[in-house]
């Protein structure tokens, strides 16, 4: 059972205190977008074996959504950061790159 540290309140929350929100850093496509764009936004998920960016909500704690970088194969957690982030923090990206040299980047 995972432990993720909530970047807002600092609690090292166990999975039962959290609710999952699937892939992070999706760009919303609304009216005016093409079918392909909308399909990608709605349905196309990366589902990688390896580094993955996810949304989690500290639902039984401070109620805030945050983002986590995690290895789906080993469950290693590289870091968590606020949901109000357009992209993963640079230092986190550097840390992941150091640990997973083959990683192609979050996009």
């Amino acid at each position: 059972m995972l432990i993720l540290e909530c970047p807002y309140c600092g609690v090292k929350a166990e999975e039962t205190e959290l609710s999952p929100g699937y892939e992070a850093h999706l760009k919303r496509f609304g009216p005016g977008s093409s079918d392909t764009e909308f399909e990608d936004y709605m349905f196309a998920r990366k589902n990688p074996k390896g580094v993955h960016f996810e949304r989690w909500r500290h639902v039984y704690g401070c109620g805030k959504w945050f983002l986590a970088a995690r290895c789906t194969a080993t469950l290693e957690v590289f870091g968590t950061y606020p949901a109000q982030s357009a992209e993963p923090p640079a230092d986190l990206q550097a840390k992941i790159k150091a640990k997973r040299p083959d990683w192609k980047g979050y996009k």
Partner: protein
Amino acid sequence: MSTRLSRGGRLIDRSASQEFSFNGKKLRGLKGDTLAAALLANDQMLVGRSFKYHRPRGIVAAGPEEPNALVGMGRGARFEPNQRVTTTELFNGLEAQSQNHWPSLEFDVGVINNSLARFLPGGFYYKTFMYPRAAWKHLFEPIIRASAGLGKAPKDRDADRYEQAYAFCDVLVIGGGIAGLQAALVAGASGARVIVLEQTAHWGGRAPVDGDVIEGAPADAWVKSAVEALGKMENVTLRVRTMGAGVYDHGYVLAEEKIADHTPGDGRPKHRLWRIRAGRIVTATGAIERPLSFAGNDIPGVMLAASVRDYVVNFAVSPGDRTVVVTNNDDAYRTAIALKEAGLEVPAIIDARVSVTGDLPARARAMGIRIEAGRAIAKVKGGKRVTGVAICIQAGEGSVLEEIACDAVAMSGGWSPVVHLWSHCGGKLVWDTTHAHFRPDATKPPTNQDGQAMVIAVGNANGAMSAADALADAAKGGAAAAEATSFKAEVKAASATQVTEAPMEAVWIMPQGAGSALKAKMWLDYQNDVKVSDVQLAAREGYESVEHTKRYTTLGMATDQGKLSNINGLAILAQSLNEDIPQVGTTTFRPPYTPVTLGALAGESRGEIFQPLRKTPMHAWHEAQNAYMEPVGLWRRPYTFPRAGETHEQSVHREVNNTRTNLGLLDASTLGKIIVKGPDAGKFLDMLYTGVMSNLPVGKCRYGLMCNEQGFLSDDGVVARIDEETWLCHTTSGGADRIHAWMEDWLQCEWWDWKVYTANITEQLAQVAVVGPNARKLLEKLGGMDVSKETLPFMQWADGTLGGFPVRVYRISFSGELSYEIAVPASLGAAFWEALHKAGAEFGTMPYGTEALHIMRAEKGFIMIGDETDGTVIPQDLNLGWAISKKKADFLGKRGQERNYLASPDRWKLAGFETLDGSVVPDGSYIVAAGHNANGQGNTQGRVTSTYYSPTLKRGIAMGLIHGGLNRIGDVVEFNTVSGGTVKAKVVDPVFYDKDGAKQNV
């Protein structure tokens, strides 16, 4: 004969006799006995029957690896099947019954399977599926069903209590033998928070039985001092009777504490499930001895060698007067020596090795024990009890050289480290050829959230097989665990006297050239009756993967999960496939290590607190009125309030009629209420709802729909504008938390720069719907505010007081009647509800429940989320296009609804239905269409979504989705029925009652 010896027994108290019963027979044991020890002391070697062939089976082991000796324990509400006698502590009054036999343990009809063994080979179950279908249905299935299942399921509700608890530590040590204690001493001394778990009631593990000498004294003395030292450390917690069941991600461990198994009914919880989060996990789980595969190795009286000496040394119980020891290693000589020292006879040690050297054989020889090197057991003689062994050459095919009379056989095929906990979370294993076992591969440990090793195996569990090696390894492991959790540790190991042991020799079949007749009597898995011949057959039939072989033969699938059989079975498979054991690999180790009671997994979640039941402030009143309650999410809501002599149907109809003609009161407290406030709140709600909420005037209400991004209808409710910056959004009863979370998701993750706050105030307010022609009269009687049509018209709200209660009154209606929904603070809810009833008596007030609510809304053609919607329905399907803004550039779901499939005119759309005969369309009915689809199923053109008997119209009414929707009005269609026929119905407008709204707009 197995019997109690006159002296010895390190765990028993001879002054404390305990009475117990086995199959109704009164027997006596001693305090400190396991049930197994007490049974053996009473010469009860035969304790059960095997699963498939019903062969007589005796006690094989002395610990949790026991495959045979499972019994039903206790009776009535404390009956438990499949309890291992080897791990059951004896207590006064214990009752046990043997299992899997009929009519009696001694004479069992099912043993006929044994003579049919030839026809029940490995893969029998699978083969039954493949032969003619009729054979499965009429022959195999009835036989398998009649004989399936081990033990009896308890019939009564469990009388015991269970609970769970959370614990946190830096270092969790699992196993309280000398290695575990040593690791804990080192980690504890570093200052780390340490928890030590031991599955039995005693510390020290095997070392005291094996005669190990630590720090110059018998192991017992060191164990005692170590436990005392740990007990004095404030940062160390010791728990006995607690089994480390499983290791999970990120240092999470489940452990089961058996608190009151040995003191049933003393008021304490029976078991406690520990949910432990550890920085590092040290597994000091020891090793399990392997049987040897020789013909007749399942006959009662054939036991593991180390277990035999456990019984002798711990409990002063001798499994037999004359015990033949058969081995491929030096360790089993300890058993021969222990038996001899206890004054018992060891006619011979049969050692498969040609060359026998080492300290222990030398001691045995010196005691005058006959040692037969390079020999094997060709066959064990006896039926329900060993009577002798036939000896042959290990290198040969089994020609009998000699028969030796004996009443017990102590076998040892070597030791397998208990690697289960290491492996649960991905730790890899390496094959150790010296000891012929798998041990943890320290270079491939299970890792934690930081990518670091989270499990450290020590002692026997790590392949350090001698006491001296185990202590040194454990001190190292304990220090590593403490250091990894940021403590400074000193590697300091107790020293043990090293006993030189000669190498063991892997022996997988005895004798190595045994023919098929012998191999068909060599048991690998005792409980599931899997023999050497079965695994070889599986290999011949093409099962190359160990995981497939396991399932095909059921090897290792019994309640012991292959603790004795896995390595032996694997070795046979590898031999049959001409591969090395590591190439074949192991099956997957899965938690729990030994079975965990369902009660412990459920913990406190039983009875009243099985799940949280949400109660409104009026709940007690409803219960006092004998309301029939139904679940709505976790809420319990009154379905109806039946009066004496009424059926639920009658009371529901009475409630509808009374509400339509007089006055009904509904507890609507469960309705979701979410405050949305801020400069951008209007903009936000315009994105959330399909309609426009930003232009709603203060004081007014508007119905709104919410969709998900795919465009499907998700929730509905009335929104009220409270002030310039504040809206109150009503959600469905089940939807408040979900919709609040949905709002927060968009505010936090997408539009985080918008100035909007939300607050879910659902439970702050009790809400009552006052519904019916007399509604206004009641409120006017209570007095305090103007509720007239002029001051408070339909779809407006006002704050004020009623009968002295502070209220917010909404003129909204879900029934089509004159209706006020009135919110009061929850703590006044019950009082307000009662005041309404009291004052309303003269107006014919009655409470009504959810079913009457459903019927009245269906009569009005109002949709219900969850009835008309199922996650695939868009508002347009429900003719709710009027509630979707055409002007807004964007709202959640708008783009989704533009997808061509959702915009298709071919979608099924909402209409009403009236059966021609007035009957009620069955729930779940489809509207049949002509012809069949490609799968030969009848075509459909729609389905019912809500169907009721309308007490108002005195006929069946329904809402449903139909191809063509309202364009089909006037058509007669057919709904299928449960009995296979159809019922004809006319397509009509879904508003069955007061289409103009004359009744609600008064």
